[in-house]
């Protein structure tokens, strides 16, 4: 049984968010990433696997090493997903504002 990884579940974890911050500046190997955490190496590997599955990280083979790097496209998708919700409220509030402005004038 394969559970589809939810990207929001992925970023809900503080360690995984720390990993994303870490690789934001440069691609890193699993070993280099793990050295930044107290957690056991398999734990970090598991986090990397989850982040890779939901495409927040890309793997790139360089010689014998696998480097992990941030997938900016996917990060942008997360940032954008709140945007329609924000627009919905922005739209409502703009309407409220213009209605009350004319309300004020009528008085």
């Amino acid at each position, binding site marked *: 049984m394969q559970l589809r990884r939810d990207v*929001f579940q992925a*970023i*809900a*974890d*503080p360690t995984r*968010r720390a990993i994303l911050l870490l690789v934001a500046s440069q691609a890193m190997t699993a070993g280099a990433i793990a050295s930044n955490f107290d957690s056991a190496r398999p734990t970090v590997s598991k986090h990397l696997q989850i982040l890779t599955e939901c495409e927040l990280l890309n793997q790139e083979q360089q010689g014998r090493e696998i480097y992990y790097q941030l997938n900016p496209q996917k990060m942008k998708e997360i940032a*954008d*997903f*709140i*945007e*329609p*919700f*924000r*627009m*919905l*409220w*922005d*739209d*409502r*509030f*703009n*309407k*409220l*504002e213009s*209605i*009350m*402005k*004319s*309300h*004020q004038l*009528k008085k």
Partner: protein
Amino acid sequence: MERKTQVHAEAGKQEILITRTFELPVELLFKAYIEPEIVEQWMNTKVLKLENKRQGGYQFETTDPMGNKHLFSGVVHELVPNHKITRTFEMENTPFPVQLEFLEFEALTEQTSKLQMQMVFKSVTVRDQLLKMPFAQGINMAHNRLEKIFTEPNGN
């Protein structure tokens, strides 16, 4: 320029924080929340009931672009004119659990004000689902609303 409407939804938290500044005196901003005819206009809904007092209830009926009717309702827990409204919010006949809303109104200057709306959800999962709803429904809803605004005759 800073956006007038801001949404904060921290990962892993079961709340959404919406803040908005208005070029309106706080009295007018508050009025837009308690006068049924005004609520109907900006919320694009029909107001069936709006009791602005502690333990008062409210119920809105909104018709979506497909013509389906949706009921939204809740109970008021706290209402301090020009300062705050604390209330529950529920989408009737949906699997979504009730949520809690803290609305805080603040006068910035005589002519400007700020609204902070804190929505608290039963779980992080529910919060994320709700946050994603406008995204999932596509730009459809916003488009329809925009279209309506543009085709509505101007003036009162």
